[in-house]
């Protein structure tokens, strides 16, 4: 933690010092919630970016130019996001924006970023509707909830054999998006959703009423579409109240804290994950190691996707995307990018179609599910 703060301080100092050499650097902005409720995700974005930038600078930069970035805090609220966008859209040296973390912030700020012609690449916006709003400058490297939820539902019904599933979702842009897709996808698989419940992340910590209701309804499987804290608590309370059913969760449950909080109740908890925090393939393992050293926690989708974005832009830059306009074009033209989170390319909306993994908790550790 101290190390990373130090590294960031240094990078800010360097950013200040080298501002006069702007032409010799590639500069971009990381914007996300650095304070407030989702500050943990912002911290992940910052750390992932820092690791990628350090690696690139150590090996000669992008096209011989040093890379540097600034960090802005949108607190996760749409109004603040518009102010940040207005402020940084005046900075002529910025090549692109890495952010926002919250879908609602992206929707609020996109009109302003678009006016400035800045490409915006988000590591974590999952709301399906953003790419359909018609902003040509927007990209994201995470699969939208449309694809991810369908994958989760299919897995839950076909592989886990849920016959009477219940949906419980976090009342946020993230959980709501997943819920809408799931509620439509499950009936298509020939199974009815028996019950649907929502909770407010960070406030509702007691699921006993919901669990009791599920027991009464004879639910045999629960799809938990929400954060890892809620997922862990739900698993634990379900076990205590004697609801012994199959649990499966959305991507934001794929965090080691799920197990830390839920304990042995999370055994056999399946999650869909854009990134495996225990990946052992050499490239991923090296990134995870660096991340662990810098942040004292394992990277989640936010850190890993931010890391990929920097390399993605490097590739696009080397293929002629040296200013804002040509970068947008170059990003669209990349036919295949190989990142730590998987291989992908953008479609005409700026969406990607990455394969997500299924992880399962075995012996208090996430392991990859293999068929």
């Amino acid at each position: 933690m101290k190390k990373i703060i130090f590294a960031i301080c240094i990078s800010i100092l360097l950013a200040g010092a080298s501002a006069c050499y702007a032409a010799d650097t590639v500069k971009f902005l990381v914007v996300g919630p650095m304070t407030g409720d989702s500050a943990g995700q912002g911290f992940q974005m910052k750390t992932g970016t820092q690791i990628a930038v350090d690696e690139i600078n150590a090996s000669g930069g992008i096209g011989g130019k040093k890379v540097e970035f600034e960090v802005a805090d949108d607190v996760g609220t749409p109004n603040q996001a518009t102010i940040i966008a207005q402020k940084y859209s005046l900075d002529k040296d910025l090549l692109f924006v890495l952010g926002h973390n919250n879908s609602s912030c992206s929707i609020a700020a996109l009109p302003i970023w678009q006016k400035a012609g800045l490409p915006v690449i988000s590591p974590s916006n999952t709301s399906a509707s953003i790419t359909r709003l018609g902003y040509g400058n927007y990209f994201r490297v995470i699969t939208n909830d449309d694809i991810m939820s369908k994958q989760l539902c299919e897995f839950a019904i076909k592989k886990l054999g849920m016959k009477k599933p219940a949906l419980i979702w976090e009342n946020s842009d993230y959980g709501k998006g997943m819920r809408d897709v799931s509620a439509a996808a499950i009936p298509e698989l020939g199974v009815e959703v028996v019950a649907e419940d929502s909770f407010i992340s960070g406030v509702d910590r007691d699921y006993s009423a919901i669990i009791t209701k599920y027991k009464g309804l004879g639910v045999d499987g629960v799809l938990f579409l929400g954060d890892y804290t809620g997922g862990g608590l739900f698993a634990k309370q379900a076990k205590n109240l004697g609801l012994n059913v199959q649990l499966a969760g959305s991507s934001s449950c794929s965090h080691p804290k799920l197990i830390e909080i839920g304990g042995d109740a999370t055994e056999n908890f399946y999650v869909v994950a854009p990134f495996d925090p225990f990946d052992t393939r050499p490239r991923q393992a090296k990134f995870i190691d660096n991340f662990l050293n810098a942040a004292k926690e394992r990277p989640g989708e936010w850190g890993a996707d931010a890391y990929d974005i920097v390399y993605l832009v490097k590739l696009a830059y080397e293929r002629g995307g040296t200013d804002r306009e040509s970068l947008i074009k170059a990003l669209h033209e990349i036919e295949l990018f190989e990142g730590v989170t998987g291989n992908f390319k953008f479609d005409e909306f700026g969406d990607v179609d990455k394969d997500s993994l299924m992880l399962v908790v075995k012996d208090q550790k996430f392991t990859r599910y293999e068929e």
Partner: protein
Amino acid sequence: MKNKYKILLFMFALLIPPIIRNEYYVRIVNIFYMYSVVALSINLIVGFCGQLDMGRAAFMGLGAYCSAILTVKMGLPFIAAFLISGAFSGLIGAVLGFLCRKSAFDYLTLVTIGFNAICQIVFLNWIPVTGGVMGISRVPQPNIFGFHFDTNTRFYYLALFFLAASFIAMHRICNSRMGRAFEAIRDDSIAAEYSGINVQLYKILNFAIGSVFTGLTGALFVHYTQYASPFNYTLDESIYQLQMAILGGLGSLAGSLVGTFILVVLPEISRSFYEYRLLFVGILMVVMMLYFPNGLLGKEGVGERLIAVRLGMLGGKNSRKDSGG
């Protein structure tokens, strides 16, 4: 004499955009103007009438959603939607005021907090109308009889006009019989009742008028940011707005502008300030209450204290505090 300064100040304000010429700064000033009106409305309720309302953001949200729905889903022109939103918010304010007309101090505060929570949940979940968590995007920019306020600079003049008009209106209200009735209720509602003031009616009126201004601001704001999101109208936002009114001085209209300026502009100037703004707000709230309970520009505020120091009259100032025994 005093009016001359005000007119000069207004003339100067007209020249701000051509002087600063930076879209970001203009945006900050625009937001400052709009929040000023919210602070004024809080001042009217908390400062003049002594009703501790902690749910102002809910009324901003009501105005914002009302205007966004009327323009986006029903295609009404901006100006009609804007005015209807003010009326709608005022009506809800009147209803809430009516329900709380007899409630004691703490209950009113709790009811406003509860109302804020209810509004947020409704914004979040009434999907066919409010769009749920995704909110309502692509809200049109203000357009009055064919004139588009589509840049920050153009919008600046609209916001300035809105602030000036609201300020004058508030000033008139506060210096009328009604304003004095509010103050009488704040100082001692029983004595006010005996002086022939219809306390319940004035409480309702106070709430309704304050809510009209808050709702109008919410509507204007949403046409500026072009996006209505349920995450903008939280309890924390309400308390931050409350602080804007407190900082400048409860019971001082000009003070509200000063308080808002400090809380909107300072966080933008200094990033480290921004990170610690809520801690700072907390410390300020305590310090202000201990030393300037009526705000920087209110009664016993900085101005009066400076005069008192100059005249050597500060002795005995703290006598009130020691009466605790």
